[in-house]
């Protein structure tokens, strides 16, 4: 096959991939913004993992918007206007400024008939201790000037049912239900809360965009309806949308920055647009293919992969640069076949070491990191193939520039720099540099906080904290999972937990909790309560009736009560509760892993002493604290702690490749520059106070693979037998260009707003810069 035919074939294949990509673009590239999706399963218990997912879906779709104004009427008007406008179009649903009036009959329907099994804790204690006096208790109810009566006094003459109802009402936060509005009044401002839900999956691009657009429209209308209104919002959808926007901004900045930078640098070196076009074509082919392959295989791209992919340009273009440098160096003697043959060994060693480094990354069980690694594997292989098959056909004519004149500057720079790094002076410089690193190494601190993964918009985080403090709603990343063999056992186990939580609430370590057993006590508890009432209240029906008549009740009413007690024997069950609209806000608490697994969730509100709350499950059967953020952080820490041995293993594997090619002694000198660079890079982290994270470690791993390329290129280009004099300058130029383009790609990530990318970029940029500086150490001399 001729060179040209092969080029056309490759271009044809590229065209098909581009068409596929265009097809994907039309449908919208599925971009994953959920951090959890990027992480491995962190819970040992698969049920817990499932519950985390179902709970975050239930709670994650919630949207809370708070309207604050000095005038109560304006705050309400703003809330009404927002709900009408934002809820009037698609994006958000179930938006309510004013909650529908709850039907008091619902409470009676669910509980009143079976109320004799329901007792507040204080009443149960009083009855059990024998302190109960029917006469005093009834009279106290009668003389109380006001009270909340769910039932007529004659049906609840001792107030047991009323007090139980009060005990299950939520007590956290400063919000009150007033006239259907959720209102908080403080410091001369009135705040009104509007609750709604995202219409669709919070992490779905389109649903996210619609929800945010609906919010913006509503907020604008609210501000117009009530000038001066202050609007706070929170909800996973806002964080996800802002993270996506930040990643997109990063990607734009990095892609545009690196393309401009690379173009300028390449033009300065080659004085021609052709190498730039070829380089971008080669790198572009790699990135295009990687994007299409991963979307087809994985179904979606994680946003971290996207930001990473943008910076892969810097590495993918290296192969084309080496090829174009060879073209320049050959001058009039250029043949494409000869050029390919000349760069082949260097490219193979370089690609092999990089692939090795990325494969190691791909072995990490992090779906996100593994996707990044696979993206790089596909991208680099395609970029390399394009240099082998595509570029030769497009670069057939020899360069007209004088090779010596064009590369002389690079040759001189290399000579001067190698002269500095030669002999005993080099050893002294290396030792001094390493000594200077020591304080930096000692200052290193690790940080495995999972929040580093996502850029949390600080303004949104403030609004979120303000709303949570006021509403008592929690993000739900930490909760108790209660399991048992059946419904009754789950409820019974929950009761033990809830008792401890109540103690914590009393001592101020926690402000509240939500548990199904508060609404539906276990059957055994209901039966025990009923038996207790039977013993202490209804034991002697005659006396009870007489007492009720004495305090003033009509005879019929006094007689009806014991009769009703006799009839009401059926306890309230979870399915009764689930069937009632009253359970709507709490349904996610029950059977969170599906109906087949008897389990429930107890959520926490306002944890002020996390350590003591975590202790609440100690020694309780079937109760576990699920803390997704903590277990993910622990996992990140575990992988990070394996990073040093991991890096060592990667270096060793590369050493094996190098030994095969160069022999033992030379292989070590090829590896020394990059190892030295890593040592310096680690010290930079210490000096700059940047925490060591798994992502920094990933950066160092990749840096190892890329940094060693420069030594390889230099050695292959200059120390190879039969290299012409001009090769020295051309190779030096190629290596410098490669490092510059990589710095312009990955290095720009160091300025990313995403902490994970920032750490990654910083580790990589410093390693690359160091590798370039020390690369001449690998030359024979």
């Amino acid at each position: 096959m001729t060179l040209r035919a092969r080029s056309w074939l490759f271009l044809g294949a590229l065209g098909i991939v581009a068409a596929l990509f265009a097809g994907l673009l039309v449908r919208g590239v599925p971009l994953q913004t959920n951090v959890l999706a990027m992480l491995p399963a962190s819970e040992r218990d698969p049920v817990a993992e499932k519950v985390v997912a179902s709970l975050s879906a239930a709670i994650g779709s919630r949207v809370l918007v708070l309207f604050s104004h000095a005038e109560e009427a304006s705050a309400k008007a703003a809330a009404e206007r927002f709900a009408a406008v934002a809820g009037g179009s698609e994006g958000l649903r179930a938006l309510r400024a004013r909650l529908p009036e709850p039907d008091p009959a619902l409470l009676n329907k669910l509980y009143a008939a079976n109320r004799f099994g329901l007792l507040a804790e204080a009443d149960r204690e009083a009855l059990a201790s024998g302190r109960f006096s029917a006469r005093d208790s009834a009279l106290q109810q009668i003389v109380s000037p006001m009270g909340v009566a769910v039932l007529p006094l004659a049906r609840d003459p001792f107030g047991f049912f009323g007090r139980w109802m009060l005990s299950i009402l939520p007590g956290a936060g400063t919000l009150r239900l007033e006239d259907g509005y959720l209102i908080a009044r403080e410091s001369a401002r009135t705040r009104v809360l509007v609750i709604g839900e995202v219409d669709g999956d919070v992490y779905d691009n389109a649903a996210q965009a619609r929800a945010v657009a609906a919010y913006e429209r509503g907020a604008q209308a609210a501000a117009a309806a009530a000038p001066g209104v202050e609007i706070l919002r929170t909800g996973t959808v806002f964080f996800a949308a802002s993270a996506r926007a930040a990643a997109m901004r990063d990607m734009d900045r990095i892609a545009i920055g690196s393309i401009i930078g690379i173009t300028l640098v390449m033009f300065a070196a080659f004085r021609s647009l052709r190498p730039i076009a070829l380089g971008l074509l080669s790198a572009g082919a790699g990135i295009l293919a990687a994007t299409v392959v991963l979307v087809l295989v994985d179904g979606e791209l994680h946003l971290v992969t996207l930001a990473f992919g943008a910076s892969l340009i810097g590495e993918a273009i290296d192969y084309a640069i080496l090829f174009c440098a060879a073209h320049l160096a050959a001058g009039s003697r250029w043949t494409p076949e000869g050029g390919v043959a000349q760069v082949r060994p260097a490219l193979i060693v370089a690609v092999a070491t990089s692939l090795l480094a990325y494969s190691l990354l791909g072995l990490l069980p992090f779906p996100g990191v593994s996707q990044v690694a696979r993206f790089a594997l596909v991208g680099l292989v395609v970029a390399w193939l394009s240099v082998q098959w595509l570029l030769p056909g497009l670069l057939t004519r020899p360069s007209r520039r004088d090779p010596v004149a064009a590369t002389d500057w690079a040759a001189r720079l290399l000579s001067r720099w190698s002269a500095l790094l030669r002999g005993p002076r080099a050893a002294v410089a290396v030792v001094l540099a390493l000594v200077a690193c020591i304080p930096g190494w000692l200052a290193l601190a690790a940080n495995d906080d999972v929040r580093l993964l996502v850029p949390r918009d600080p303004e949104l985080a403030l609004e979120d904290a303000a709303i949570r403090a006021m509403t008592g709603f929690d993000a739900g990343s930490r909760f108790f999972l209660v399991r048992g063999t059946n419904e009754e056992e789950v409820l019974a186990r929950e009761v033990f937990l809830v008792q401890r939580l109540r103690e914590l609430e009393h001592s101020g370590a926690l402000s509240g909790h939500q548990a199904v057993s508060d609404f539906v006590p276990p059957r055994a508890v209901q039966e025990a309560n009923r038996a207790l009432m039977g013993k202490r209240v209804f034991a002697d029906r005659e006396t009870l009736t007489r007492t009720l008549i004495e305090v003033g009740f009509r005879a019929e009413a006094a007689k009806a009560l014991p009769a009703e007690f006799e009839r009401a024997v059926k306890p309230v069950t979870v399915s009764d509760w689930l069937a009632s609209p009253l359970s709507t806000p709490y349904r996610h608490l029950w059977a969170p892993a599906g109906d087949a697994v008897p389990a429930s969730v107890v959520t926490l509100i306002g944890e002020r002493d996390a350590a003591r709350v975590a202790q609440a499950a100690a020694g309780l059967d079937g109760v576990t604290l699920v803390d997704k953020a903590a277990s993910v952080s622990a996992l990140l820490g575990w992988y990070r702690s394996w990073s040093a041995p991991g890096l060592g293993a990667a270096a060793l594997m590369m050493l094996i490749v190098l030994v095969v090619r160069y022999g033992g002694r030379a292989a070590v000198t090829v590896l020394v520059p990059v190892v030295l660079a890593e040592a310096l890079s680690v010290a930079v982290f210490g000096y700059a106070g940047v925490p060591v994270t798994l992502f920094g470690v990933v950066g160092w791993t990749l840096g190892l693979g890329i940094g060693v390329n420069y030594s390889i290129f230099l050695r292959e280009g200059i120390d190879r037998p039969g290299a012409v004099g001009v090769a020295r300058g051309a190779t030096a130029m190629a290596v410098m260009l490669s490092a510059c383009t990589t710095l312009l790609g990955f290095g720009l990530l160091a300025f990313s707003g995403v902490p994970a990318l920032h750490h990654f970029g910083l580790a990589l940029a410093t390693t690359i810069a160091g590798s370039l500086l020390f690369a001449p150490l690998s030359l024979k001399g």
Partner: protein
Amino acid sequence: MRLALVLLLAAAGPACADDLLGSILKRLAEPPVVRARFVQERHIADMERPALSRGRIAVSRREGVLWQVDSPVRLTLAFTPNEIIETGADGVRRLRAQGRNAETQIGRVMRGILGADAETLQASFTATASGSLERWSIRLVPRPREMARALREIRLGGGRHLETIEIEETSDNTTAIRLRQFSIADQLAAEELEFFKAP
């Protein structure tokens, strides 16, 4: 703040109904502590006869309202801004309500009425005053629908002090409270303060 606005208007223009309400409340809220004896008469559905009770009340601007029933049973209720503390015949103190639930709102209303707290009253009721500063009556109609569901209206009457409270519930239960033998003090007695301590 609203009260200040009312007073400002009163100073600037001719007397109006709002001005009367503001003046009444301002005057009622003047003493640091007011004590009185009360007789309460409740008409409750399913009861043969009105339920009578007697006792003492102490309204402190600082602590809140102390409602002490002496007969026919001993019961003390202490209404603080955020809780109602109940002390039964056995002397055991317990929390009757706490936080944001409905019972505390009722406690707040009680405090608003007995303590003549303009802000609390205006937040929950449409208030209209009639009569003169020496002999007035105030009609309170609940505004939030949760309250309106249980409460029809409250009528207050008095002169220098609040003398009568009539409460009409939607269930047709009614309560009439008459206050008399007023005395004014600078602060609550130590034994009264005991009732406000959290159990």
